[in-house]
């Protein structure tokens, strides 16, 4: 990888109380990022990580159209690779370099991966789940694509605060957990609010012919949870860390199956 580009155009994106500084020599791209992450911007004085971004077009040596993500660690350096980007990140130095296509979509994907790695070290994770705050508690609605994450978000009463309709951000908070808003969105096409709340219940979504909440065995909850945690690194030690984090989460958090009809009445059974 070549020498990192430097430039004066910085932006600091803070998600889940993890500020990440992005620096690009391209003023226009900085503005695009500012627009993409509006609501999640902060000053960069306390950034956990700093990335220099080098925009490249065309993507000369970035391979074919394969969208498979590769994430690996060697000698304390994380290497992230997809057809539209290459990135390196020195964990100890907190510095990284990104070479990517000139689209925020690429930066967005890199940020998701970076946050999965940041959270893995502290017992948290990103989860395929919609999330919102209601009555001071965060509710999570997890499921694969098509399970109803965006639908449940769209049907939410006016007194709920949307955290995300697609990717939820979970951090340890002492012996409990806290859910944070993210700019990562799904079909709803709007970011969550930049706020957080103690985690209440995680619901695993299933579409059905009635609205009902059922308890599920912890073993099933663990299996479903692991299926929905975002994790990209093929690193055996980190897989063990994620497994342990998931197990601890299952032991501490209330989890149920929510079968629902896609209309607003579902919210009358959610407690």
């Amino acid at each position, binding site marked *: 990888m070549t020498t990192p580009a430097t430039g004066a155009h910085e932006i600091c994106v803070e998600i889940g109380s993890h500020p990440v500084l992005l620096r690009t020599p391209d003023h226009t791209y900085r503005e695009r990022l500012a627009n993409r992450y509006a609501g999640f911007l902060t000053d960069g004085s306390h950034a956990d990580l700093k990335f220099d971004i080098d925009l490249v077009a065309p993507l000369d040596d970035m391979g074919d159209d394969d969208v498979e993500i590769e994430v690996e660690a060697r000698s304390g350096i994380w290497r992230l690779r997809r057809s539209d980007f290459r990135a390196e990140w020195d964990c100890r130095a907190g510095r990284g370099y990104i070479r990517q296509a000139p689209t925020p979509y690429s930066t967005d994907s890199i940020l998701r991966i970076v946050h999965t790695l940041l959270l893995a070290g502290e017992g948290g994770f990103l989860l395929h789940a919609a999330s919102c705050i209601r009555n001071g508690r965060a509710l999570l609605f997890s499921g694969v694509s098509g399970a109803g994450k965006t639908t449940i978000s769209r049907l939410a009463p006016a007194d709920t605060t949307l955290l995300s309709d697609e990717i939820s951000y979970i951090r340890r908070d002492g012996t409990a957990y806290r859910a944070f808003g993210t700019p990562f969105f799904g079909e709803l096409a709007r970011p969550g609010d930049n706020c957080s709340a103690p985690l209440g219940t995680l619901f695993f979504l299933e579409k059905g012919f009635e609205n009902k909440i059922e308890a599920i065995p912890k*073993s099933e909850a663990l299996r479903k949870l692991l299926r929905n945690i975002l994790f990209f690194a093929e690193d055996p030690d980190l897989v063990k860390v994620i497994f342990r984090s998931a197990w601890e989460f299952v032991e501490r958090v209330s989890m149920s199956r929510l079968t629902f009809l896609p209309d607003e009445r579902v919210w009358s059974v959610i407690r």
Partner: protein
Amino acid sequence: MSERYVLRSSAIASRLLGGEMMVMSATDSTFFTLNEVATTIWQAADGHTPLSEIVTKSVCRAFEVEPETALQDAQSFIDKLSGHGILLVSDQPLELQPAGSPEAA
């Protein structure tokens, strides 16, 4: 048939949860839920105890099952898990791998 020895791989993460052993391969993230009999074999897979002894002393004592049937089932079980690399199988005793010991909830 020669004796077989089984040992939990160190490249796994495992937890006993709600009476079931949950095992995940750290190399390919394959996930397994073991039933009670399989959990008994899993917990006894220390690399030194022959499989036949695990079956007679652990499985047959804990569950009402004939030794021959239990051994057949055990052979099938360890073949499946060894195929995913989460159990090591040998006709010689195997060295214990510290990181492979199961963690009980």
